[in-house]
């Protein structure tokens, strides 16, 4: 009997497949299509202290095999999430990871503190949103990462995951996060990227820079995971362009303990359940009981 379950960042997941923040709403949206209890976990839409309206349209722009987004963290705010969304989400039968974004280190601390007292299973610090005007990509700077993760660690008893950008001093940031008490590193968020409307001679997004995701970034995201997983002892959760079970196996072979699927949900709304079945068949086909013999084997 194959066992897909994984222990990752202070949680046991029934399988290593997690819906990435911002692509799966609060779960109920996809529950109209399939039983989302099959998932290993769901990362919520990025939550902030106060509600945010997000960026003006357009918020989406397609590129070859890629998707640029500039949503701008539209969300109802952490309090409304805890009161209204979380009780519903809790019934979905999977692990819930609250993804949070703070304008300042102190905001991260407040968010982590509030969620630590809530019914979520873990908190993922989004240190890498490219879509907030003037927002600094804090995850690119190890000192910033150390400060924020340290502040949150003191107030958060739940497992603390840190989602880093794929750019900047990623290895330094990951080491800093680990030293400051992170339980896992999610690598990575979208790539800062640009599209220009040549008719207007202006960037297509009001916020100019957007975040690139999708199959176009997979080889780069895979390389980041490959390098990171050698550098830190905490589990790495791979994210970036995963669409198929083969993609997920590549990330696990590169050293990931789990994977997050984001844009894949838009390419195929049934991407995650298909991917989980594929992983099951893969392990069974190889006569493997679990992931131990596979994880990091490409090093």
């Amino acid at each position, binding site marked *: 009997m194959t066992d897909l379950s994984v222990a990752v960042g202070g949680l046991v997941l029934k399988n290593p497949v997690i819906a990435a923040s911002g692509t799966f709403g609060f779960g109920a949206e996809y529950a109209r299509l399939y039983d989302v209890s099959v998932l290993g976990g769901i990362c919520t839409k990025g939550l902030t202290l106060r509600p945010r309206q997000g960026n003006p349209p357009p*918020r*989406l722009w397609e590129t070859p095999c890629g*998707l640029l987004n500039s949503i701008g963290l539209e969300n109802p705010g952490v309090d409304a999430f805890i009161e209204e969304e979380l009780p519903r989400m809790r019934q979905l039968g999977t692990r819930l990871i609250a993804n949070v974004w703070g304008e300042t280190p102190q905001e991260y601390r407040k968010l982590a503190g509030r969620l630590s007292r809530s019914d979520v299973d873990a908190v993922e610090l989004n240190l890498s949103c490219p879509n907030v005007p003037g927002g600094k990509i804090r995850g690119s700077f190890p000192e910033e990462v150390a400060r924020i993760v340290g502040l949150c660690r003191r107030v958060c008893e739940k497992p603390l995951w840190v989602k880093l950008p794929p750019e900047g001093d990623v290895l330094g940031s990951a080491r800093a996060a680990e030293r400051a008490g992170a339980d896992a590193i999610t690598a990575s968020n979208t790539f800062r990227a640009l599209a220009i409307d040549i008719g207007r001679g202006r960037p297509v997004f009001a916020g100019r820079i957007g975040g690139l995701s999708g199959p176009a970034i997979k080889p780069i995201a895979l390389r980041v995971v490959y390098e990171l997983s050698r550098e830190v002892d905490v589990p790495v959760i791979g994210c970036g362009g995963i669409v198929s079970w083969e993609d997920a196996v590549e990330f696990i072979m590169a050293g990931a303990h789990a994977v997050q699927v984001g844009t894949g949900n838009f390419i195929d709304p049934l991407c995650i359940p298909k991917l989980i079945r594929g992983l099951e068949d893969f392990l069974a086909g190889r006569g493997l009981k679990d992931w131990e013999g596979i994880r990091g084997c490409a090093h």
Partner: protein
Amino acid sequence: MDKVSVRRAKVFENREVAPDVFLLQVEGAFSALPGQFCMLRAWELDPPLFRPMSVFDLGPSTISFLYKVRGRGTGLLSRLSPGDKLTVLGPLGNGWEGAEGRVALVGGGMGIAPLLLAAKAHPQAHVYLGFPGKPYLVERFREVAGKVYVTSETGEGGERGLVSDLFSPQGYSTCFACGPLGMLKAIAKKCREVGVPLYVSLEERMACGLGACLGCTILTVRGPKRVCQDGPVFCAEEVLWDD
């Protein structure tokens, strides 16, 4: 929430009804309310997103969509032949419940697409169709609607001009409109002036179609709303038109 499905279906017909405008008929028993849409794709990874399309018509064993070739996705759709497979996600969105009394349905350009189902649900409705050039599919509307008015910017096959200029909401109890933003704004202004409620079907780029990604959010007097899930049909008075 309503039942949504994602399924593979077979193309029955994909006919060019005007230059670059196609009527795609797909086999299968589907359901949809007037104003609802489906997400379509007939390719693997690229382009990454489905294409949202209003449901044009429903038969006992077919569903059809009317679309204009605008980019890569619609270009790929236009090359589908009978028997080819595509993926249909839907029905999506709130749809338009309809209304009692004298109803006017106003469509401009591709905005005529959701009007046929609405006309079938309101057999007494007056339908206003605006075309950039030679009109198409008008007979389909005449078969089901109380009265059909046709305008075209070139004057071919109808009254010359824009449907938003020629349409007057006076005397109607409710209006439903779909089309380019400029047209919708003009009709919203006319309806406001005479106090006739107007519902508009809006369009925005969307990734998931299910309300999860927040890619298609617009601002309304009730805060940010998702075109795919809270819409695509909105009460015009609630939309914050960006002027």
